[in-house]
């Protein structure tokens, strides 16, 4: 099965987005190692690091303490999600002025299908240049872009020459481009699949491409079919112009392991309020409340409860989460390191929401 219609896909990835926004808003931070994340003395992790910080080996998800050890002169900044969201909206508006087919992956990343575009530009590379220039001129940030005939290629390409990069893979170069990639770069290949591929002696996508579909399906089930296609640079996934959010959640890693149930309840209330705010911003309500608990030994459990009706209400979310905490976890006995609250089974965009009576004290417990 081969689609004859040739698509032109751009993947745009903002460079060190959160850190760059901080450097944009606070000129004194420019040129310095900026780490957005938690307190370097606490147990928070790095949410983003400026390129200056990355030179010290500081990476996302690294504990802030570790980051501070690697670069004593690094400036630690608390994340300002509101502001990042605002900038992200600005960038999204630029994308949407060019094509209606924009699929944001997160605040700092999006796929664009520019096969048809308002610039009436046939060369996708020129559209990418246009976008990068507008982001620089209108927002003041740099972005890296990858251009290719599908999402897989565009995404891998955008990562090749960061920051401020632009890599264009025309259709005729796709096969040779993909063949030399390590299998880990293929979409959907995580450490486990990579390990199994390695055990089969398959290290590059080209090695996988040489195997038959049947062979791959026998070993990997349905994923084998996808692997086969991806290893040949074939990716039919369309660009969805609105990515349906499936859930909204919030979690926190404590400064020290917590055993006090009172303290956990308090944190739960905060997390629930945060999730409620996020749902509010989305304009959606959800029915399933999930509590995630990571004990001090890193054992992680999740427990869910489905409510009768979708909710956006912080107190309702907190009550359900509290019930899960009390009945389905070892809170109070085993020290807890991390706790998260998530609301899923979101109602449809146009589903009307039953509003709540404005009780004040319907607070949890």
């Amino acid at each position, binding site marked *: 099965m081969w689609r004859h219609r040739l698509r032109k896909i751009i993947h745009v990835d903002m460079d060190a987005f959160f850190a760059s926004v901080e450097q944009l808003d606070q000129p004194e931070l420019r040129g310095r190692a900026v780490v957005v994340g938690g307190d370097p003395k606490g147990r928070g992790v790095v949410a983003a690091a400026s390129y200056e910080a990355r030179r010290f080996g500081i990476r996302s998800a690294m504990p802030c303490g570790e980051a501070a050890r690697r670069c004593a002169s690094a400036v630690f900044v608390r994340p300002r999600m509101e502001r990042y969201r605002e900038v992200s909206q600005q960038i999204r508006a630029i994308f949407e002025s060019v094509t209606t087919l924009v699929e944001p992956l997160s605040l700092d990343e999006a796929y664009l299908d520019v096969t048809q575009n308002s610039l009436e530009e046939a060369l996708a590379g020129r559209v990418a240049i246009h976008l990068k220039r507008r982001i620089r001129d209108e927002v003041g940030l740099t972005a890296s872009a990858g251009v290719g005939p599908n999402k897989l290629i565009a995404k891998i390409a955008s990562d090749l020459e960061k920051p401020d990069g632009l890599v264009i893979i025309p259709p005729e170069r796709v096969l040779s481009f993909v063949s030399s990639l390590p299998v880990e770069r293929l979409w959907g290949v995580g450490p486990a699949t990579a390990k199994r591929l390695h055990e089969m002696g398959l290290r590059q996508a080209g090695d996988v491409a040489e195997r038959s579909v049947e062979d791959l399906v026998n070993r990997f089930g349905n994923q084998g079919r996808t692997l086969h296609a991806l290893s040949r640079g074939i990716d039919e996934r369309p660009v969805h112009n609105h990515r349906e959010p499936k859930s909204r959640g919030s979690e926190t890693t404590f400064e020290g392991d917590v055993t006090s149930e009172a303290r956990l309840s308090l944190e739960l209330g905060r997390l629930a309020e945060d999730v409620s705010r996020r749902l509010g911003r989305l304009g959606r309500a959800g029915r399933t409340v999930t509590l995630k608990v990571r004990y001090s030994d890193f054992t992680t459990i999740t427990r869910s409860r489905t409510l009768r009706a979708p909710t956006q209400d912080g107190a309702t979310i907190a009550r359900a989460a509290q019930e899960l905490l009390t009945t389905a976890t070892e809170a109070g006995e085993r020290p807890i390191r991390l706790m998260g609250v998530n609301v899923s089974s979101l109602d449809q965009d146009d589903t009307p929401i039953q509003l709540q009576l*404005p009780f004040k004290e319907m607070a949890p417990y």
Partner: protein
Amino acid sequence: MSTLELEIERNAFLSTLYKAQGVVDKKSTVNVLSHLLIEPSSDGLKLTGTDYDVVLEAALDARILHGGLACVNGKSLFDVMKSLDAPTVHLKVLDTHWIEVKAGRSKFKLAGINPTDFPEIRSPDEVVWFGIPHGTIKDLIEKTAFSVSGDETRMNLNGVFFKLDPSEEGRATLTMVSTDGHRLSKVETTVEVGGYDGQPYQAIIHKKGVQEMRRLLEDDVEHIEVGFARGYILFRSRGTTFTVRQIEDTYPDYERVIPPDPDSRIVANRAEMIAAIRRIAVLTSSKTSILKMELADGGMAFTTSNPDYGEGRDEIDVTYGGEPITIGFNYVYLLDVLNVLRSEMVTLSCNDAFSPTVITSDDEPGARFVVMPMRI
């Protein structure tokens, strides 16, 4: 071992067994909670049933032929009694704890269990009893029972809030409130209460108790006796007592969600409104039950638009002079309120599509119903 044997009048027995049907567990036939304990008392017979939230104790006239205890499935006993047509019924406990029921030419043997397995019922001590006019308590319950929350994570809303406060001339002001967080019903009335001591009393009556209460209210009596005790509230009529567990929690401050004086008041004919809503409800989504209420000068329209079913619109005349406004509602919430009111005209007060709407009636001044809109 002594075996109970008695004769009882069928109709009286049936009417008491009916009141017990809500208390006995109907899901399981072996569960002890699906059984009723039958024992002789000083003036006849005593019947006890419980589901732990509510205890039913009923005194009945009966001719005890032989003392003893019996424990039998409450639903089978009721069903059998209902089917009989003889005026008198003869009951006798057999060696196996089974019970033989004879009436006229009918004869049954009902499975029973050892009466010692029946849970011990501890009666609350120090009950303060009042006599409340039947019509008053019936009105209070009918106007509040429908909006009790079924959400078990909100324990304090799983019942009707009931309070008595002293009023002038030794009378008492009775208030009942219920809410499920989306809507709220509050009814208040001042009446002569028998034996009232002028003290304030309050309780959250578990919703199961509220349902059982309604069975008592089918009796044609002048007063229902209401008793307050620590942890319990009791209802008594004609020898039948329901002891209902109180929900020992604080009831939310309901006054703050009842808007004081809204901007616009709409007077509508209740029956017309019900008819229009019912017509439009035919095409509403069963998932959300939403309809839109459009208000414009002199008119109120209900509309529904559903991609799966189609559209509908129905209009009625109302007094409204404000700006045109459209509010979304769960139509069930509107009907619930309109159905418990009795007056010809009702008054709706609303500020906007996001704030509580209040429904009242001039003929029933103590009743206020608050309904939150649905965001469209």
